[in-house]
């Protein structure tokens, strides 16, 4: 897909905060596309931070698309308020709800070593815009800040935000202010 090709070129070997501006309707496809590239082509380990829907749905998508999940850690803030409960592949850590903003930052800090572990890796957020009903922009900014430091200084570590600039311009500005580099698709 075009998004994987663009991402491959823009992010080849480079770390940092990468922003992919896509329409809300295309987020899932782009996310799967990027994970396919990172996991199957680059064999990287990473974290998926689910704040929009239970991570089991993304897990099931990856399973159907033939993308291995043994190097993925899911941080899931939604399952406990979703009315859903099912098994999924990949390691899973559940938050009680998306309202636990302080826990987010602390948890992300605690997992910095565990996730990055001295090797290249990534964290991808599914999907930042979904935090708007739960918290104010300064709270989101703290979370984004914590996520961007998750690599613990590893130059190859990538913090990836797939977002719709048109519908969440204020969040887009926050990520760009915190060092975001837009990957043109």
């Amino acid at each position, binding site marked *: 897909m075009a998004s994987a090709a663009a991402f491959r070129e823009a992010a080849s070997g480079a770390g940092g905060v990468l922003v992919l501006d896509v329409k809300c*309707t295309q987020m899932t496809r782009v996310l*799967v596309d990027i994970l396919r590239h990172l996991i199957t082509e680059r064999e990287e380990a990473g974290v998926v931070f689910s704040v929009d*829907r239970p991570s089991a749905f993304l897990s099931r998508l990856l399973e*159907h698309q033939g993308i291995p999940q043994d190097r993925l850690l899911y941080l899931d803030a939604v399952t406990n308020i979703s009315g859903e409960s099912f098994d999924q592949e990949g390691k899973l850590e559940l938050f009680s709800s998306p309202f636990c903003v302080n826990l987010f930052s602390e948890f992300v800090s605690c997992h910095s070593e565990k996730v990055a572990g001295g090797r290249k890796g990534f964290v991808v957020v599914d999907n930042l*815009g979904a935090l*708007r009903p739960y918290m104010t922009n300064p709270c989101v900014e703290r979370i984004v800040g914590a996520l961007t430091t998750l690599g613990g200084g590893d130059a190859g570590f990538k913090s990836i935000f797939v977002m719709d600039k048109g519908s969440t311009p204020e969040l887009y500005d926050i990520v760009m202010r915190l060092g975001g580099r837009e990957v043109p698709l």
Partner: protein
Amino acid sequence: MVGETLERVRSGINGMDEMMQGGFAFPSTVLVAGSAGTGKTTFALQFLARGVKDGEQGIFFTTLSEPTQWMLRFVTHFSFLDKDTFGKQIRYVDLGPTLRKDRDPDKLLKFIDDNIAEYMPQRIVIDPISVIGNMIKGDYRMFLYDLANHLKNWRAVSILTGEVLPQEPYPVEISYIVDTVVLLSLGLTSEGTRRKYLEILKMRGTQHTTGQHLMDVSRDGITVTVGLK
């Protein structure tokens, strides 16, 4: 304004987006209810065709109303349907065999989920949903709750069409679990002519136009004329 932070997709129904802040909330579930001949299937296909124009994928699940083979034969005269999209941008999946064989709500839900996970559509249609209630064994309300929850978590706008009975204007049980209820109906004008009408009964998170509005079905599909009653 209510719902100003919700992302939206265009309905594809001429004149309808102006009634609901620009389109259906993304993701969301929509019940399109009406008696025979009111335009439910046309509505659903027009919605999927709009998605193709916007670069999206669609799945049309048929249940036990009309086999895909015959449905497609009848609808291909519509100008909004591009036959080149059949089986590509719009995939047709028959739920009939699964319904007939197992009548198990969990197996049916898994079959639906598996197709969605494989194809990753942004627009989904189940036509008609109301038949399933008569077919499956087990708790229908629980099935509807899980179905609606799953459909939204797959990140899609889903249209569920519902057949209505003479004693109820729309399928009540389904109306509680969806985000939007659109009612298509037939009525007599003051001149005594039978016409079709569209009414938005419910739309979570959206300021929408109320009341019945005149609806025409032509080769170009459904057109709603807001204000004409």
